[in-house]
Every structure is written in C-alpha cells, then in structure tokens.
C-alpha cells in the first residue's frame, strides 16, 4: 500500500515540476524578491521591513496560486487523458490515488517554498549584509505559510473531487479569502444573537482559519512567536487538512467516473 501511495506521490511531484507555469511563477517570485532591495532604497529606514513584507507575502501568495492552479487539474487531467482508468484498473484504491495526489502536490509546494526561502534570504543578506537572531522568526513565518499550503491543497482537492477545474479554483480561492477573515467572522458570531449567532459560529469553525497562520507582520517587526502557537497551529493545519481530505476521499469513492 505504501509503495503505491509513494509511487503516486512522486509521480505527481515529477509532473508538477515539469509544468511550465510552475517555473514561470518561481522565476517571478525570485525576481520580486530580488527587486525588494530596490523598494527599500526608496523607503528610507524601512529597507528590511519592506523586504520581509514583500518577500514573505510573495512566497505565500504564489504558493497558494500554485496550490490552486495545479491542484484543480490533478484529478480532471487524469480523467481527461483517461490515465485514471489505467491507474484504477491496477490494485490502486481511489483513496490512495487522491491521497497520493495530495502528498505529491504538498511535496512540490514544500520544495518550491525551500527554493523561494533561499532566494529570500539571499535578497535579505544583500540588503542588510548581516543576519540577526530575530531572522529566525522569518523561518517560522515561512513554516506557517507551508501549513497554509497544506490546507489550501486539501480544500482544492476536495473541490476538484466533484467539480470542474474552473469552479474548483473559484471555490478554493473564495474559501481562502473567507479563511483570511475567519476571525472577523468569529467576532461577528460572538456579537450576533439567535439563529444568526449559531449559523455564524458554525460557519466560523467550518471555514479554515488562515489569519492565525499569518504572522508576517509580527516577524517583520521582530516580535517573538510563542512556541505553543507553533505547536497548536501545526496540529490545527494537519487535522484540518486530514478532515478536508477525508471529505475528498468520501466524495471520490462515490464518484461515477464513467
């Protein structure tokens, strides 16, 4: 079982790496990060702050774009090319197929994030000529961004397990935007009354919470991130991704592929 899962995972990774769109996005991010010192030069005294904000935001946004745009095609492309039938005719379970696809894309995103992080730190060193202890916090922010990728990939696969690629992209992006305002939704639920309160509370717990995973502002200002937050954010991102993938598996198991 594990060898089948590993085969699908690495195959997905290989396919994603071959994708030209992926390379374009990486080059774009690297160019953006490399140009950040120029932004710094026109903002006296804020070079590092701007570089950190631009760099981390780029890593986050482009990673999410990659997760959505590759994620939506993972299932539909296999159906379109009819390769899915070949795969499923072998002793490969549907859940193994969808889980392998998920892990393959997550692996791609982690590798991308690593390259982007290297580019980001190079740009940071060019701009500041030194690293400080506070810069370790930047790695935590990137770790949280990777946790966001876990969730975005899971929800993209969830939508693509039953919907067309275009709608999957729209749904996943909409859920990402809603998730960045999840805490506003919870605050709204806390102040609402009656049925609205229950509905808003339910929706607030159901949508992924991306705001807790965004610590770019804090680390850009050198504020510390508590270790408990790292622990519980990790637990949250993993469990939410598992829950979303479980729904994707349930839907894909019942999907008529004929």
């Amino acid at each position, binding site marked *: 079982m594990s060898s089948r899962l590993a085969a699908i995972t690495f195959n997905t990774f290989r396919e994603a790496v071959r994708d030209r769109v992926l390379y374009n996005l990486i080059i774009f991010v690297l160019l953006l990060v490399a140009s950040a010192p120029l932004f710094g030069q026109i903002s006296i005294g804020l070079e590092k702050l701007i570089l950190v904000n631009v760099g981390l935001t780029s890593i986050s946004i482009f990673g999410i774009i990659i997760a959505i745009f590759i994620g939506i095609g993972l299932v539909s492309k296999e159906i379109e090319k009819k390769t899915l039938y070949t795969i499923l005719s072998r002793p490969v*379970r*549907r*859940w193994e197929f969808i889980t392998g696809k998920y892990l393959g894309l997550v692996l791609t995103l982690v590798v991308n994030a690593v390259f982007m992080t290297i580019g980001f730190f190079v740009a940071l060193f060019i701009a500041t000529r030194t690293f400080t202890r506070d810069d370790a916090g930047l790695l935590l922010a990137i770790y949280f961004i990777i946790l966001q990728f876990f969730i975005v990939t899971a929800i993209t696969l969830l939508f693509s397990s039953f919907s067309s690629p275009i709608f999957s992209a729209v749904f996943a992006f909409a859920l990402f935007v809603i998730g960045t*305002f999840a*805490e*506003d939704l*919870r*605050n*709204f639920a*806390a*102040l609402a009354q009656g049925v609205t309160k229950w509905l808003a509370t339910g929706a607030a*717990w159901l949508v992924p*919470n991306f*705001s*807790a995973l965004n610590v770019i*502002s*804090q680390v*850009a*200002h050198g504020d510390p991130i*508590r270790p*408990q*937050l790292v622990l*519980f*954010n990790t*637990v*949250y991102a993993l*469990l*939410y991704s*598992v*829950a979303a993938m*479980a*729904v994707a*598996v*349930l839907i894909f*198991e019942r999907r008529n592929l004929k």
Partner: protein
Amino acid sequence: MKGRRKSTTVAVLLLIAAFTGSVLALHQVDTIRGKQATLEEVLYIPSGKTLKRLSLGYSSLLADIYWTRAVQYFGQKHQQEALHYEMLDPLLDITTDLDPHLIIAYEFGSIFLSQPAPAGAGQPEKAAALVEKGIRANPTYWRLYFTLGYIHYFDRKDYKAAREAFQKGSEMPGAYFWMKVMAAEMAQRAGENSFATEIWSHLYESTQDAMVKDNARQHLTALSMEREIEEIQRRVETFRQRTNRLPAGWYDLVRAGLLQGVPVDPLNNPLKLMPDGTIQVADPAKIPFLTKGLPPGWKRPVKHQ
C-alpha cells in the same frame, strides 16, 4: 465492494476525529493569541493610506471590514467597562482613510472616542480631530458639525468652539432649525442642565441608531435626576431656613408641605437624606452619567483595565 466500505468507514471516522481535533486546536490557538489578535494587526499598519494603495481598488469593502472591527473592538471593551481603548483611534483612522465618505465612522466613532471611560475611550481631542477630518472630506454634511459641537460642548467644555461648530452646521443645506437656535443660545446657557438636556433630546430624536439612542436616553435620565436632586436640595435649604435645623428625614419635609412623599430615583429606589442635609441616590452605579447625588469620593466601579 468490501474495500470501498472499509475506506468509507475509515474516512468518516477520520473526518469526525480530525474536524473535532481541529476545532479544539483552533480554540487553543485563540487562547494563545488572545481575542483581539486580528485587531492588533492595526499596530503594524503604517497608515490607512498605504493600506488603500494595497487594496487594489477595493478600499470601500476594506473600510467596511475595518469599521466592523472598530465596532467589535468598542463593543468588547465597552462590555468589559475598560478604561483603555488603545486601538480604537487607529482603527477609526484606517477606516476613514480607506473610505473618507463613510459618515457613520465619523459620527459614531467620534462618540465612542470622546465619552469618558468606561463609557468611551475618553479621548475628546482625537474625537474632535476625527470629526474635523470627516468635515474636510464631507464639507456640506451638517450632522458632522452637530457631532463636533457636541464633543466640544460636553467632553472638551470648549463652548466657543461648540458655538462655532453649531453655527457653521446651521448654514449647511438641510440643517435642522435648532442648530441655529443652539448656536445663538450657547453664549447665555452654556453649562446649564436645561441646555445639555436640549442637546441630548435633539440627538435622541434625530438618531436612528439604537445604541446612540440608548446612550442619549441614559444621559437624559441622569440630567433629569440631577435637576430633581437640585430642586429637593433647595427645599431642604428652605426647611433649614424656616426651622433653623436640618430635617431628620423625608417626613419632616412632607409634614412641612415641602414634599408630596418620599422622593425616588429612576429605578424607584428612595433617595437618601444624609445627616448633613445632602441627598444621595441609593445605588449610583446603576444610574450611568449621574454627577450629582453621589456619595463623597465615590467612583464608578471598573471591571477591567
């Protein structure tokens, strides 16, 4: 078929366990970050103008979100009867930078800012600056002049500035006639209970917002109670002049024909006649904004800083 059933069962169990676990983990994240973690982000935003540039043309939508955050922040702090509202001013500043025509943010935001703690942030200077910013962006909207006059009158006690604000507002299209009357009477009646009652009555009658209406009602109740206390105090003095002694209780005043019965406060609690002839309400904490009839040195209780 059997394999599919097994996968389904495992997936259902995983879904239930993982979703429950994620909610519990998120609850822990909330505890670690605090309830106002999202709102604290404003401390990292250099200015609302920068945020406007980054909003890619959706600044009105973002302004609505920030206004909602300001209301939520104020609501939570108000409920706690807090003395400090550090983030209210930056939240309102960002909101109005994002949408300079969001009148509600100037009108209600400035009232949140100006009122003394714990009812508000106790920052009348910042409140006046916020309304002046609103007037610069919306120069013909007369209600903003009324709000500015209200802040100068009640919270800054700058009656000259209040008169000027009412006067300018009265010249704007659609301004209510009483704006002119208030501007004219300001010089003679500034500081009087009846004048304050008039301003609160206008606010009570003209606002559509339940919260502002309730606030105005509470002020009117307190002002009415203060007038009553002043009147009873005069009758106690009359009794003292007639008899050369202070009344031992309310019945002395009733027997002397100075009162109809035992006077009560708005909560129907009897007022207290103290041995030194002063009058006190039974439970001052339950009558917000009351400034007379309070025990000496009494301060409004505070739940949280």
